[in-house]
């Protein structure tokens, strides 16, 4: 897909010399990355390399301080936007550890989320009937039981159910930029395929994804345009999809860190 990109197309996400610290400790130490619309980039790296920090700083979590550099999303300075503003502008994070909210049904939560973005875009809110119709159609694609909708958000969900629920939310919200943080962890092979199908269905010339993963496995299903290796807070190597396969064979040892 990357080859099909017209030359000079402005990147959707442009990161320049990004440094990020948590409680004064530098975790990301100068990241440069450009993601154009239509592209899928994979960020791979060993534990502790800064992958989740990268996901959180993009989505605007408190406590992740940008000490140097810029993150531009559609030319806007992302660091100045509140988390909900980023979300409404089409940035979605599939959480590595989705959060439980007791008493709040999946449908209630998701309808609030969908309508928050619709309101921001000046569209009418979806009423309960229209929402349910849409939700059930998306759930069928993801081979999810409709009973999911009435369960309390992530409460008592298995690891796989949580991840599938993240992808379900993503397909409902149709983000322009999806960041998937270790969405493959805890998934068996069938679930992995279903989740990957969900991500692939969203691929389009005006959307992009960042797939963060430790393992190459997910990338068999979500074939990336670019693969980047993150180690010790820096992107130490970038390449095409074949780079992921090399990593699978050799591990991360050559990047000076334990796998």
């Amino acid at each position, binding site marked *: 897909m990357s080859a099909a990109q017209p030359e000079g197309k402005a990147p959707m996400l442009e990161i320049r010399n990004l440094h990020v610290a948590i409680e004064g400790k530098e975790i990301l130490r100068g990241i440069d990355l450009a993601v154009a619309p239509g592209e899928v980039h994979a960020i791979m790296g060993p534990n502790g390399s800064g992958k989740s920090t990268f996901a959180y700083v993009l989505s605007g979590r408190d406590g992740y301080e940008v000490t140097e550099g810029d993150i531009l999303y559609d030319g806007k300075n992302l660091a100045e936007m509140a988390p909900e503003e980023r*979300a409404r502008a089409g940035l979605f994070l599939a959480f590595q550890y989705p*959060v*439980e*909210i007791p*008493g709040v049904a999946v449908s209630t*939560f998701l309808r*609030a989320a969908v309508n928050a973005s619709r309101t921001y875009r000046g569209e009418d809110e979806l009423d309960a009937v229209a929402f349910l119709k849409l939700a059930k159609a998306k759930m069928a694609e993801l081979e999810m039981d409709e009973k999911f909708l009435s369960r309390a958000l992530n409460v008592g969900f298995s690891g796989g159910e949580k991840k599938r629920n993240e992808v379900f939310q993503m397909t409902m*919200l149709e983000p322009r930029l999806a960041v998937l943080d270790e969405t493959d962890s805890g998934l068996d092979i069938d679930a992995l395929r279903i989740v990957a199908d969900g991500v692939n269905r969203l691929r389009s010339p005006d959307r992009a994804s960042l797939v963060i993963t430790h393992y190459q496995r997910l990338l068999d299903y979500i074939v990336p345009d670019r693969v980047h290796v993150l180690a010790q807070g820096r992107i130490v190597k970038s390449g095409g999809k074949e780079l992921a396969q090399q990593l699978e064979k050799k591990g991360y040892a050559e990047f000076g860190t334990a796998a």
Partner: protein
Amino acid sequence: MVSTPETVETVESATGEYKYGFTTEIESEFAPKGLNEDIVRFISAKKNEPGWLLDWRLKAYRLFEERRHEEPAWANVKHPPIDFDDAYYYAAPKQTEKPQSLEEVDPELLRTYEKLGIPLKEQEWLAGVAVDAVFDSVSVATTFKSKLEKMGVIFCPISEAVQTHPDLVRKYLGSVVPVADNLYATLNSAVFSDGSFVYVPPGVRCPMELSTYFRINAAETGQFERTLIVADEGSYVSYLEGCTAPQRSQHQMHAAVVELVALKDAEIKYATVQNWYPGDKDGKGGIYNFVTKRGACRGANSKISWTQVETGSAITWKYPSVLLQGDNSVGEFYSVAITNNYQQADTGTKMIHLGRNTSSTIISKGISAGHGQQTYRGLVRISGKAENARNFTQCDSLLIGEQCGGHTVPYIEARNRTAHVEHEASTSKISDDQLFYCRQRGMSDEDAVALIVNGFCKEVMRKLPMEFAVEAQKLLGISLEGAVG
């Protein structure tokens, strides 16, 4: 309180300011300020009451005089001593004749109700809810009366019931909450202004939700509402009560008494959404809500259920209770209470098991934010004769921020070996993780808090009649505005 589109719009347009903080410009007729025997006689005379009721009031007044410095001190609330002489005990909108229909009601009054989201004129077309609107001390309009009358249901201001059904009022008034019960109940008995009276005859299922909207309008007026609901054998009634008060800097007192009587096989559901003015963000002003609510399950197989959503008032002191006298009778208490800014609430219930095979359920959800302080105080008493009594209690506290407090004070007294009493309690906080998760999905801080709090309260909210549920949900969000960030 029907959730008309206007209601929803009003709620949605509300900002962090108290949205019911307007006053209505109507000439009021006051009794002189202060409390003395003449005031009690004045109130009774204004309402053209029979001698027995005046005597009852005077007896209460004399008892109050003996005890007026004995405010209940055990509750976990703080306020300066109340100067009972620094308030008006009677205020009625000035009108020469009592209105016979909505057309005769002062349009300014009707506009007030419209701002509150209950346009009475529209009520007539909206199916299902009869509204008895209490404006300060006098009921101004009662709708659906004729339909109810056909079924023998009496639903009218209690002042009117005193005239039209004196025997019923006399039989039950004070029979659940005795005059001497507590200082505020004694005061109410002496000076009660108006309130609702409901009687449902044997075997009748009241065909609609009965609803009263209370509102304190005149400055420095205490509102002493008195409500009496009697469900005769085999009958059923569901009653909704909603409250608002305009914004004023002084503290105002609301000392209501509500009595419910359920005879054999009868059921009463009583739901309250209380959003009296809570004071400003620095704790200035607001209503003192000192309320005595109690129901008696007099007959076998009777049932009384209290549901309350308490978001308003500077101080709430309230324990809707059930006396389980009849065998197999059932008492329920479902409560959501919010204290934000400098609000204080000491609220809970008493379940007094007297009959055999009686059972009670208590679900209490307390939310504290800002500098709010909240105490759940509950008593479960199983008397010696109450064979096979059952109680289940669950008290959950949710804290938002570092300055607030949530306290649980359960009393359990079991005097019968067959008693089965369960108590569960939990305290939790809204976590940063939860807030971030919601915000990452596009919700604002405040919407996220409202969503999480509604989830926390779900078990109670689903007990509310549909008409109430939507507005009550929004009210939770509004009450907690400014609680985070």
